[in-house]
């Protein structure tokens, strides 16, 4: 910690806050004790850094030269009306929920920012009670190493460059960040691709570097993070799989699907007219395990299975999900899904054989 520096910056703040009008730089140098012993060059550099630090905290330092006596050098001031937290009135119930916010962030600097916000509310006479609502424990994680640099870039509107997992260096104007299933994404304008892009923060393999000053670009007014986040969600189903699912198993597939009406234990569909079906269903009594065809339409399943229609868009994600349930889910249709599932199962079974051998 640097108490002298803290003193100097605080005294500078008070000096600019109490004056009411623009204070010329020369007078600031005289008035603020921490500047007294510095050479001209050192004063200039220190004063610039101090102003930057205050602005980074959100202190509104105005520059002007309205004082006719000092119109050849810039003056500085802080207007109390711009500096002060506007009136905010929370009832006890509202203050209680705000108090819970103190324990949400599981990331040091984000927790510190929240703590600082609550300190301001307390200083304004609001008493958030952090011991309330102990039975609610919301938490937000941000364990990705690149998170903090990107967050700061979003807040300050600063361009950043980073290496993405494909090894390419990307330069981005970050507009915002979104967390989905506990993973952070940064959304912004990709200057190389000249397009809106979303990057998974965990796939950034180095520390993002600032490549512009703060406030270097504007975020489009119509940026909708929720809409962009939704675009991460699995695409809408475009095809339908027919799956036989053992009773009580694979609830996630069941819930997404629709149950086909039962016709006893024989699960074959109504005969379909025309030659395109590729198979002619045989009589139920005659059907055995060996009369199946490629379409899977005329299979007689063992007892305890129900048939569901489940929508999907890509074969591989649903194939993974079906594989996971092994013998509890049978793909009746389409054949390419069954092929993918059986290939996956064979690979798992073969690995087992190989390790046993």
């Amino acid at each position: 910690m640097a108490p002298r520096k803290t003193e100097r910056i605080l005294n500078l703040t008070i000096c600019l806050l109490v004056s009411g009008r623009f204070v010329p730089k020369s007078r600031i140098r005289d008035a603020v004790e921490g500047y007294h012993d510095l050479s001209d060059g050192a004063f200039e550099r220190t004063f610039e850094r101090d102003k930057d630090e205050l602005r980074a905290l959100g202190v509104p330092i105005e520059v002007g030269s309205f004082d006719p006596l000092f119109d050849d050098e810039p003056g500085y001031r802080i207007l109390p009306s711009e500096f002060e937290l506007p009136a905010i009135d929370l009832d006890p119930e509202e203050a209680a929920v705000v108090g819970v916010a103190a324990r949400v962030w599981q990331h040091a600097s984000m927790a510190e920012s929240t703590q600082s916000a609550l300190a301001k509310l307390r200083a304004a006479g609001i008493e958030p009670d952090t011991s309330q609502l102990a039975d609610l424990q919301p938490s937000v994680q941000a364990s990705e190493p690149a998170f903090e640099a990107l967050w700061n870039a979003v807040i300050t509107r600063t361009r950043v460059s980073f290496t993405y997992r494909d090894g390419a260096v990307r330069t981005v104007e970050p507009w915002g960040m979104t967390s989905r299933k506990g993973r952070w994404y940064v959304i912004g304008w990709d200057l190389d691709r000249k397009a809106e892009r979303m990057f998974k923060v965990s796939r950034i393999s180095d520390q993002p570097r600032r490549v512009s000053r703060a406030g270097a670009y504007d975020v489009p007014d119509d940026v909708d993070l929720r809409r962009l986040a939704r675009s991460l969600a699995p695409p809408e189903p475009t095809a339908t799989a027919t799956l036989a699912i053992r009773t009580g198993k694979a609830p996630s597939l069941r819930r997404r699907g629709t149950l086909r009406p039962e016709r006893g234990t024989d699960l074959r569909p109504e005969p379909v007219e025309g030659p395109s079906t590729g198979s002619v269903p045989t009589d139920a009594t005659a059907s055995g395990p060996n009369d199946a065809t490629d379409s899977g339409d005329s299979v007689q399943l063992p007892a305890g299975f129900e048939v569901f229609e489940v929508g999907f868009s890509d074969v591989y994600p649903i194939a993974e999900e079906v594989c996971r349930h092994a013998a509890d889910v049978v793909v009746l249709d389409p054949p390419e899904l069954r092929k993918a599932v059986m290939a996956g199962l064979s690979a798992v079974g073969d690995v087992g054989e190989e390790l046993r051998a």
Partner: protein
Amino acid sequence: MTSQAQVRRLLSLVPYLREHDGAKLTDVAEAFGISVKTLRDDLNVLWMCGMPGLTPGDLIDIDMDAVETEGKIHLSNADYLPRPLRLSNDEALALMLALRTLREIAGPGRRDAIDRALVKLEAAAGGQTTRAEVSVAAGREEIQARVADGLQRGKRLDLTYDVASRAETTRRLVDPLRLFVLDGASYLDAWCYLAGDLRTFRLDRMAAVEVTDVDVDPHPDVVLKDLSGGWFASLADAPLVTLELEPWSSWVAEYYPTESVSSRPDGGLTVSLRVSDPAWLTGLVLRLGGGAKVVAPPGAGESAAEAAREALDQYAALGLTA
């Protein structure tokens, strides 16, 4: 701590102490989330500050005797700092994301309070408060509302739940104890009468919930997990499993907490992770369809291989071909 963080805190500390004359050191430290030692350091800086000139009459006055003897703080002569600095974008966003996350598990009445607080904070912040968002897999709205209601009123829940590791749907009575959000999903800790033990349920796997009229029993001996270390900490005692991942399955290393990850020359990864439930491992290996090989402990991958062979035998018996 950086000087910047200290400046930020002192600009709130002055109006706070003006508002709370005679506040105890320990209370102030707690309100600001700092140690008493840090607070004393802050006071030592503050009383060196004041109006330009810094004559004794210009300095912020702190009664250091009262600090030393009574542990109480009296601050005066700082009329120019009656209010704290406005919220920065950073603070406003951090606070609002926290509140929006809380909203995902709050009961109906509390939700209204959160919405009102958000509107007021947004007005006070006046800046960009929509630059970040957190989405939580909280399940269906009415399920969330019923669970939160049962927790708030202390009523037993009749729960229909999908057990992920066994891929089955079950029905049970539970006493709700705590709702939490971790890694973007919301969960209920509850005493489960089916298991006769503490259980954790994901809200988005609840198929149905009814709030019963029965009051929950007291469960004085139940100790809820400390969530501050995330899932990782709660898995610390679970057995270590080593997997060899094909390049196309390397997302596993990113998605689940791992103990170690190393690259192999073929572009794949060797990872070790803690696994508390063998059924979970079986499900993962099946799902990866050959993209993961369990190399240790020996035999840990066998149940997945067996399940796969059983499924293939069933396809063969049904006459279904690839």
